[in-house]
């Protein structure tokens, strides 16, 4: 394997959590998530030459991965196999890890109903990006990022409440 390719795949392995989260936020069915994962890695590889070593790989990766998710569409023929993402065993257990998993399951279920841009806003917020950085990433002003994020969070809160989960 060429060293450039190996370097790329090693970096992807290190930062695959970003791809995992974006795929789960943007696609509900597992097959679509896998397709999006593939597409993101492919687009990252295609853009890899444009990656400037002076910037952080993860910063660059966020941008390409999010842009890919924004323009990715699921396969038409695939029927929505959205299962209720709340496995029973989670709901009945009450240790901390299970509680976190349940919260996350509610979050991912609710987030599916947001618009594409709103998902990107929430994603970057959860990744601890400032409003300024969010704006830069999405090509909108800092003020606009703040307002839109606040609206997206309110919407998300409402959606989670509708699932019967305390927020």
């Amino acid at each position: 394997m060429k060293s450039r390719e190996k370097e790329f795949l090693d970096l992807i392995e290190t930062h695959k959590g970003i791809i995992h989260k974006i795929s789960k936020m943007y696609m509900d069915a597992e097959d679509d998530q896998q397709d999006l994962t593939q597409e993101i890695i492919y687009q990252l590889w295609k853009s890899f030459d444009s990656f400037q070593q002076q910037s952080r790989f993860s910063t660059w990766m966020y941008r390409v991965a999010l842009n890919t998710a924004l323009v990715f569409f699921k396969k038409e023929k695939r029927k929505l196999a959205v299962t209720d993402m709340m496995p029973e065993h989670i709901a009945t257990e009450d240790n901390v890890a299970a509680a976190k998993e349940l919260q996350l399951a509610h979050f991912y279920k609710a987030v599916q109903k947001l618009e594409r841009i709103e998902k990107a806003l929430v994603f970057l917020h959860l990744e601890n990006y400032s409003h300024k950085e969010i704006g830069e990433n999405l090509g909108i002003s800092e003020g606009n990022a703040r307002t839109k994020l606040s609206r997206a969070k309110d919407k998300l809160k409402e959606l989670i409440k509708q699932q019967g989960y305390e927020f």
Partner: protein
Amino acid sequence: MNFDDIKSAWSNDNDDNVVVPSSVDQLKTLQLPVEKLRSNMKIEFYVQLFSLILIGFLPRYTYFAPVLIIPFYVVYFVAVAISVYYFFKFHLFYKQLNTATLRSKDRLYALYYEAKLSIEMYKSYAYTLIPFALLEMAMHMASRQDSKMKAVFQAAVTNQAIAITMVSVFLAMLLLLMAITTFWVNSYYGKYMKQIGKVLEEFKEAA
């Protein structure tokens, strides 16, 4: 639950199910609307090229009145020249799609508007070719010795009513073919254009 709880759960989310391929050759893609447009464009290019070449041989494998052969090839080469111009434009766009990366938002906007523009250009190309196709067809029909059409064409030269009817039929066919072309382009590319439009709309709203 609040957003801090989500953040905490989020940072511990397990990413074990992401399988990084052992080689980039294993990556498959064709899920982005631009990639699909690109693949459809490629197929259409070959079909059109093949059709153009085939039409060029029309006087060789069907009977053509010798007097109409030169007009046929004049019309044909004008159509070929127009096609070369459009093919070149499409080639530039195709190349751009191939090298385009999603590294910046600006690039994304540019790419998507470019895609929209290219589809419109493709429609105009198809519309431009229709009158040429009809002319070639008319010449072909007029060439047939046994054809009733020949008599009709001859009658049209002296009879105004027949001439008007013929022009009307020509225009009706023109409109019909334009409608068919629009339907074809919309069904072949429209789906992806709709997806692109949806993304652009969201961007516009967010800006």
